[in-house]
């Protein structure tokens, strides 16, 4: 029956030990980016992209609501402007009835024309003021959205780097393949060696001797 393990290279014992030490040293120095870090980074990007979608949808709802309010407000302003015009006209009719001469009648009509013009002008200015304030709101929303898009894009770029297979990862995997060791076993061995070193140090300390 054939073994599923990779073919062990034909190295001498001393060569194998040397390679093993090199691999363990490499493993101890840098094991690439830990999986927990990669997973958190990927999840954070997903959450940010999802939140960006929520933010866009929310701002769209707010914009629609504000547009509806502006429409209703414009309608009321127009209605009030017409009511005012009617009042100005009714007032002018009363004044015309009491006017003594043509000059007085002319003045009443001129005043009425001015009041109607002013009335229209005021309504237009008021509608423009509302429109300007709403534009400010929409511009601020766009600014906020753009800022968040930049934040999410930066996080995506960071994640791209975090998920990247680093050169030391590649080197370690290749070395591990040459000496026929599993990468996980190398990492475990490095941990075991560190534990043994700790125990040896404690043993020397208990006996009152320095390990040096």
């Amino acid at each position, binding site marked *: 029956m054939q073994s599923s393990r990779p*073919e*062990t290279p*034909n190295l001498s014992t001393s060569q194998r030990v040397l390679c093993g030490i090199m691999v363990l040293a490499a493993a101890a120095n840098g094991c690439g980016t830990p999986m927990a870090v990669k997973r958190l980074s990927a999840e954070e990007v997903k959450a940010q992209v999802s939140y960006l979608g929520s933010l866009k949808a929310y701002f769209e709802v707010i914009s629609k609501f504000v547009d509806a309010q502006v429409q209703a*407000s414009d309608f009321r302003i127009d209605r009030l402007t017409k009511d005012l015009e009617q009042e*100005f006209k009714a007032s002018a009719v*009363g004044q015309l009835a009491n006017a003594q001469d043509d000059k007085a009648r002319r003045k009443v009509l001129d005043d009425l024309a001015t009041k109607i013009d002013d009335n229209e002008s*005021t309504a237009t200015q008021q509608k423009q003021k509302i429109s300007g304030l709403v534009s400010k709101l929409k511009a601020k929303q766009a600014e906020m959205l753009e800022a968040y898009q930049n934040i999410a894009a930066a996080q995506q770029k*960071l994640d791209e780097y975090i998920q990247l297979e680093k050169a030391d990862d590649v*080197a370690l995997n290749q070395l591990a393949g040459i000496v026929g060791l599993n990468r996980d076993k190398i990492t475990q061995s490095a941990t075991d060696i560190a534990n043994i070193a700790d125990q040896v140090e404690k043993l020397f300390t208990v006996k009152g001797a320095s390990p040096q």
Partner: protein
Amino acid sequence: MTIQEIIDTLNTTFQKLDDAGVDDATKRDLHILILQLERELETAAFDPLKDVDSVTVADTSQLKILSQQVQQEIDNEKARVQLVQKLMSTAKIALRAAGVGVPA
């Protein structure tokens, strides 16, 4: 006193004049004033939006520049990986040539 409170007070006065059967230019002027204030109230309802200007948004201009630098690091790392792979490949060929069995 708010615009709404002023309108309410003027409306009460107007109603009193109406109830008293007064119908002269003064009553008409009062009605005009009420209508003008009601129209003003429509505009005032949007006044809180003036504060939008004071809302500061985080400056993210540096993020774009720094992202470009990270992209450069990504490209460098990819080049390093390619180099390591090439070195390993060459080393394996050399080991095999020397008669050492190396897995593919």
